[in-house]
Structure formats: C-alpha cells, structure tokens
C-alpha cells in the first residue's frame, strides 16, 4: 500500500469525512479526534518536562511515537487502568524501551498512576526507571531497553491468548533502528509461521538511530518488502496522522491468518522544532532554556 501524504485520506472521500466516519463508529469511553490531538500535545509536554527535569533520557524517539501510542491507548486498546493485570486486556508492548517517557506519560494520562509521579523519572527508587521495568511500573508489560526483544515476547503473549481461547490482541512498538537486530527477523519469521493474527507490530519509522540516519548507518531498505517477504501484511501510514493510524489498526483486526505490521512514517523529535530530525536529541535531555522553548512551541 503506498504511503498517503500527511492528511490525505485512504479512501476517495475527503479527509474530514473519513475522520468523522472513523471516529463516530467507536465504542463509548474512547476519545474524539480533537481530544486525542489535545492528549498528544499533553504527552509531548510531559515528555519534555520529565526528561528536562531528569537531566537525561531519550526525547527524540519518544516524541516520534506520540500519535501511535495515543491512537492505541485512547481508541483501540481494551484495558483497565485500575486493574493493570486484567487477564483479558489488550497488550501494548514497548520494545523500543528508550521511549519509556512516552509510555509513562500515557499511563499517567490513562490513570495507571498520577501525573505528578512523572517528575520522579530516573530518580533513585522511582517506579519510573530510565528504561521500562515491568516489575515496578503498573501497566508496563515488559522490561525493555535492550533492543530487539519485544516482538518475540509479543509472539509468546499472542500464542498464550490463542491457547487460552482469549480474544485479547497484542500490539508491539518497534523502532526502525531496532530492526537492525537479528532477533527481530527471527521473530518476524516465527510470527508468520505460527500465523499469529492477534499480533500487530508497529514500527516507529523515524529514519534515525544514534549514529545518524538509518540509510547511512545500516540501510533497512527495502523495508516494506522485507516484512512482506517474511509473510506479514504491511500497511504504511503517516505516523503522525491519528486517522490513518486508527484505520490501519482497524484493518489489522480484520486480517486473519497472518500478522500485520504498520510502518508508521514519523519524524524524530516531532513537535519541537529544534529536535525534529536532529540525532543529537536521540538520547540527550534538553537544558532549562530548551525546555522552556519546547514547551512554548507545544502550547
């Protein structure tokens, strides 16, 4: 499927009509498009504030995945913030564990813990560790940060759901740079082989990794065809377009007999001008002046 331009609809109707249609057919309790856009902005502000306060962390890859995680938590996932271990919950597995600030901000906005707790990020004895730690944080499914492990874990969770005749679905967020890891492709092969159709991988395809652009460090191309060749349904979307993301997640639900990967084209550092496409902010915290500047841009 070709990548539509940002804002362009996936059907022949106008973007506005599609949004209206996609967002009117949802169950009660989920958020409207307007509300989700507001939430996305709040998440970005949390990310900047918490990493700024901590003095270290990974803003770039947190900001790039904001809409992906917003679409999941506020439109798609069946989950109970008051009961994080609910056996039938849909699972969200953050494989790119350095985006922990994004997940923490999202969980706080959902009510898994208080927004105030976000200011403890990376402090000694905080439940909000530098990279995710599932033994301490409510709502965190997996300890991540060592890249490449989430997709395998997600397959196990998906297979257990099938064995138990539970109808939960499993969503796993990978980084594109993370796909350098061989384990990702071991898992890609296995997911198709085991026909786990209750599994969706979403790649935050921001095009950059620590040492620079993927295409210069380690080219992943042809990325779409690689996943197809491994037996996956591939959907490409603008990863900052909530409508496209929601539609793609819906399409994945209807697909039987094979796993789906959504390649979400994103911008690293999205939303903060001086962080966008700037590899310096992969793993560097903004200083106080930069925090103020970023928060002004996110008002």
């Amino acid at each position, binding site marked *: 499927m070709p990548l539509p331009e940002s804002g362009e609809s996936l059907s022949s109707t106008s973007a506005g009509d599609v949004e209206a249609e996609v967002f009117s057919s949802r169950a009660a309790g989920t958020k409207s498009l307007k509300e989700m856009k507001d939430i996305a902005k709040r998440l970005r502000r949390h990310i900047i504030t918490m990493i700024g306060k901590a003095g270290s962390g990974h803003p770039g890859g947190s900001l790039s995945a904001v809409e992906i995680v917003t679409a999941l938590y506020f439109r798609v996932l069946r989950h109970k913030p008051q009961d994080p271990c609910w*056996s039938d919950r849909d699972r969200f597995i953050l494989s790119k564990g350095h985006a922990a600030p994004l997940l923490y901000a999202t969980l706080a906005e959902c009510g898994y813990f208080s927004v105030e707790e976000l200011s403890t990020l990376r402090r000694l004895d905080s439940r909000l560790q530098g990279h995710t*730690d*599932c*033994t301490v944080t409510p709502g965190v*499914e*997996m*300890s*991540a*940060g*060592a890249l*490449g*492990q989430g*997709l*395998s*874990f*997600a*397959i*196990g*969770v*998906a*297979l*257990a*759901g099938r*064995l*138990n005749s539970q109808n939960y679905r499993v969503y796993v967020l990978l980084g594109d740079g993370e796909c350098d890891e*061989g*384990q990702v492709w*071991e*898992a890609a*092969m*296995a997911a198709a*082989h*085991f026909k786990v159709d209750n599994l969706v991988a979403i790649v935050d395809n921001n095009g950059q990794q620590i040492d620079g652009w993927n295409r210069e460090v380690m080219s992943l191309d042809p990325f779409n065809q690689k996943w197809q060749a491994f037996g996956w349904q591939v959907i490409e979307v603008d990863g900052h377009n909530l409508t496209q993301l929601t539609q793609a997640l819906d399409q994945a639900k209807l697909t039987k007999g094979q796993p789906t990967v959504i390649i979400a084209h994103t911008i690293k550092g999205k939303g903060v001008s001086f962080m966008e496409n700037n590899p310096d902010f992969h793993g560097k915290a903004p200083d106080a002046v930069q925090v103020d500047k970023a928060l002004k841009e996110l008002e």
Partner: protein
Amino acid sequence: MVQEVSVREVYGKTLVELGRENPDIVVLDADLSRSTMTQLFAREFPERFFDCGIAEQNMVGIAAGLAASGKIPFASSFAVFAPGRCFDQLRMSIAQPGRNVKLVATHGGITVGEDGTSHHSIEDLSLICSLPGFTVIVPADAIETAQAVRVAAASYGPFYLRLCRPKIPLVYNESYRFNLGKAVTMRQGNGATIIAIGLMVAAALEAAENLSREGIDCGVLNMPTLKPIDEAAIKKAAAETGAIVTVEEHLEHGGLGSKVAQVVARHHPVPMEILAIRDTYAKSGKPAELLRRYGLTAEDIEQAVRGVIKRK
C-alpha cells in the same frame, strides 16, 4: 555393573507426564527436539509445542511471553547455545522480570564428545549462575533428573537444568527424593569431602571407594542445586573434614569450584582443590578420552584428594 540411563530421555518422558497433568505446560525447542527429547512432548501435544527453528534468542523471548501470560514454558536446546546464544534475552526477558521459564539444556560439558569444541558447553554454568534470580540444577542421574524437572515445573521462577548427552550410571534408587537447594550426602567420610555435580558424582563415588582401600576416608556430597548453593552443607563439610575437592564438567571459571570457594573463603577457610577444565577448549574425542585428557576421571579425583589432605 551399574545401570546406565539417558537423562535426556527421562526429561522427555517427564515432560509428557507433566503435559498430561497440567494444560499450562508448553514446550519450545530450537530445532533440536530429536536430541533434547522434547519430541516426545511434541508428538503427544502438538498444539502446545513450538519449534522455533534455529533461533534461540527468539525462542527465549517467546517463552518469556508465554510465561507472562500464565503458561509454564519449558524451552530446550544444547547447553552451548542456550545460554550461549541468547544471554541478553535470558537477562532482560527472563531473569530481570523473574519469568516462570524453565530452560532445560542438554549436551552439557565435554562428554558431547566427537562433535568438538563448537558443541562442548563449558561456560554455561558460569553464564547462567551470573543471572540474578535463576535457580540452577545439575542432576546426577536419571532419577534425580525426573524429580528435578517436576520440582522446576512446580516452583515459580526461572530455572536452568543442565543435562548431559551420554547415558550415565544411576547413583540413586527409586526411593530418592530431590530436595531443592539441598546438598546430598552420598558417602560419609572424615578425611576430606569431594563435592561433585552431574555425571562427576558417579566418578566421585568411585574415587572415594578406591581411596578407602588405601585407608583414606573421604565423603562425597552431590550438589544438584548449584544456585542457590547449599552454604550450610559446605560449611559443615569444611568444618568436619578440613579439606574439599570439587569436580565439575565445566571451566574452572564461575562454576561449582568458584561457588564452593566463595563459601569456604567467607566462612571456613580450608585447603581446596578445584577439578575443572583449565582456561582452554577441548577437542573432538570419545567422552571417556576427553574426561581423561582434561583431568576429570576418578583417578584424577583420587590424586586431588591425596594432595589436598597433605595441605591440611
């Protein structure tokens, strides 16, 4: 002649029994099910068996996901590949979160034999014991293996069981009951204590018997639970016999000898000898030839006991 039994076959059969008793038991393998004997489970429960192909990292990750969802996964490969090829996966997907995964590795040590260096597992115990939270068991015979597999299934948390390739002598009879975390006194003695694991337990018993004919009275301890190690039993052995010899089919780094030495040094320093493979790799050969070449026979143990007693 003592009966020799395959510990791998007993592992496979025990998995089948567990599978019949508990629908949450699932099994994974990495294209070695004919050798690890998980194929016995695969035949009876194909829907609960996942052959992950030659991809140990992915197998470990899938096992972690199954465990996180209430299953009791047994994952098997050769000891040289798991933990060897999936150490970070064991660390972050299993050890750190304390997942209820049972990694059962066969073909431990150098008695893999003719396949040579690439298949000899001489670092696995050091690697796996370094991971916080892992319980590590090295059964001494088929009877202990069957019971240890059952105990692992019934106990929550990450377990590593190391089995060997060849058939090995029974050192127990059917009345034996494996007690997790406890050393087993195989033979009483006052002059020194031999502490052994796995197939070296049979060699230790043979050595003690031979030494008794020379008038040297030494005890033998089997240490099936390598981690957490039975500190009380080691302290007692050091105090009562005043000299310790350890013997293992593993490098001298980070295995039984290292762990016993830590306890001895901290609590009751006595002369020790550590029989293990020195800083090298073994070559192809018959298992018995290799054990002789690398100093792991009953004769080697006897010599070490004579030496350690002189240092008392």
